[in-house]
């Protein structure tokens, strides 16, 4: 079966069932809520920032396998990145989901590339990344 084998493969189901960096960060500088109003998926993203880099990232949320796996994968991908690089990675992720190809810097998040063929699920995959963009712009505003 196409979508079951292509999309709902071990990596995605593993991340959705055993999400990495799940739970509130004890010490964080940003807590950003994200919401997908059309389906009710909810997410809160926590970032600890140290020396202009993402020192730690975690999330709490409820939703489908796609949004949970995307969140888990994202927290891994952005940990250690400079804030500008994290923002840049969000653009590359969204480009991949728009079908513009996957950049190697996305690492394991590339398992979500198949979402490009499922317009109904694009918002599930991009929810954590859009939430990250909001978190970064809020943090940057405060820093200014």
């Amino acid at each position, binding site marked *: 079966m196409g979508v079951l084998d292509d999309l709902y493969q071990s990596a995605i189901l593993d991340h959705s069932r055993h999400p990495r960096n799940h739970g509130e960060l004890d010490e964080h500088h940003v807590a950003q809520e994200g919401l997908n109003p059309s389906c*009710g998926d909810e997410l809160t993203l926590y970032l600890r920032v140290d020396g202009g880099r993402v020192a730690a990232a975690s999330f709490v949320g409820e939703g489908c396998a796609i949004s949970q796996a995307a969140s888990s994968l994202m927290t891994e991908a952005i940990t250690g990145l400079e804030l500008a690089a994290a923002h840049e990675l969000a653009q590359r992720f969204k480009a991949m989901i728009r079908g513009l190809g996957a950049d190697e810097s996305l690492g394991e998040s590339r398992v979500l590339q198949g979402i490009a063929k499922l317009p109904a699920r694009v918002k599930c995959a991009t929810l954590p990344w859009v939430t990250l963009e909001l978190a970064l712009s809020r943090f940057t505003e405060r820093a200014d």
Partner: protein
Amino acid sequence: MTPRPTSADVTLDGRLDGPLDTPLDVSAIRADFPILARKVNNEPLVYLDSAASSQKPRHVIEAMRAYYEGHHANVHRGAHRLSVEATELYEQARRKVAAFIGAPTADSVVFTRNTTEAINLVAASWGRANLREGDEIVLSHAEHHANIVPWHFLAREKGVVLKPVGLTPDQRLDLQALEAALTPRTRLVTTFHMSNVLGAINDLPTIASLAHDAGALLHVDGAQGAPHLAVDVASLGCDFYTLSGHKMLGPTGIGALWARAELLDAMPPFLGGGEMITRVSMFDSSYAEIPKRFEAGTPSIAEAVGLGAAVDYLSGIGMDKIRAHDELLTAHALRRLDAIDGLTVYGPRGPDRGGIAAFTLAGVHAHDLATALDDMGIAIRAGHHCAQPLGKYLGAAATARASFYLYNDLDEVEALALALVDVRDHFAAHA
């Protein structure tokens, strides 16, 4: 028309016992719906999302095409032949809808965009004119957002109080709780005919007498009721009934409000503009009689004609037969789905249950389920179904929902059940 063979070919696992006879010639009906012939993801389309929007028979599509090709002009501006014809077709559609729901006069039927707009009309016109601070509106936890949010406006603007009523353990509207919620300050009871999530069919005559005994009016959200049940507004005992054309084989962009004529007659206008006035000076205007008072601007004429064709089609088949077919599909769907380990189907079991099955599958989120089924050509809905308070009440924020209509058959119910087992097993194997 010869009955479609409905026999042992669907008795997979020997689990499909019980009556298999439908009063409908489903294959002949399916041939009337061009879209049902298409494929989705290289699989035959299995359309189980009619509660969101039904498909359209050729009759409706043709009626709208014939209107545009032969009769279109603006209505109620009868200076020329086409306008007279368009007006007659538009008003004929109003008479058809009135007859379909048992309205005593066609004038008490107002065309709107959909149920949502019709409920907003009641809230903005009747509600604003009649409700004061501390007045109460009783509704259920299972209402669609369209039957909740317009009342929020009155709560905010007027200080009207919303009193939600819960469900019985078997997920019917709790009539005892409803009765207990009624007070001398209750001005309106507003609830569904058939729940868009639970499939529960409300006992409207009983609810109407409870409401009326308390001195309140009854509004019925008929978005799911009108497509599936024979509606007779007089015997249901309601004061307002609202419906959407697109859920009952008609086009999008057309719906209706029926109200008791004396209520409607006393209601102030909803939107202002052309069509709804008798005379306009620069600083004041007087308003037209019902129903035109509530139809400002050029209405959805072709869509009204399409809705007229849709109710002709439904009446031609017979709402009683459509209901019997619904009951057959629902009974088999519940039997098959209830037998799947890990699957929970919401809503009551019994004759007061329409062709809607909302469910959750352990270990598979509703959206993932819908994506996997879509890949097999099966269209269902997933999410909160515009009933977030109900999701919270049931403790299930997102559910998957299959809904049936006159063009669905037992093979499709079976395809759904088999697909659900496949998906469950796939997710379990990758645990």
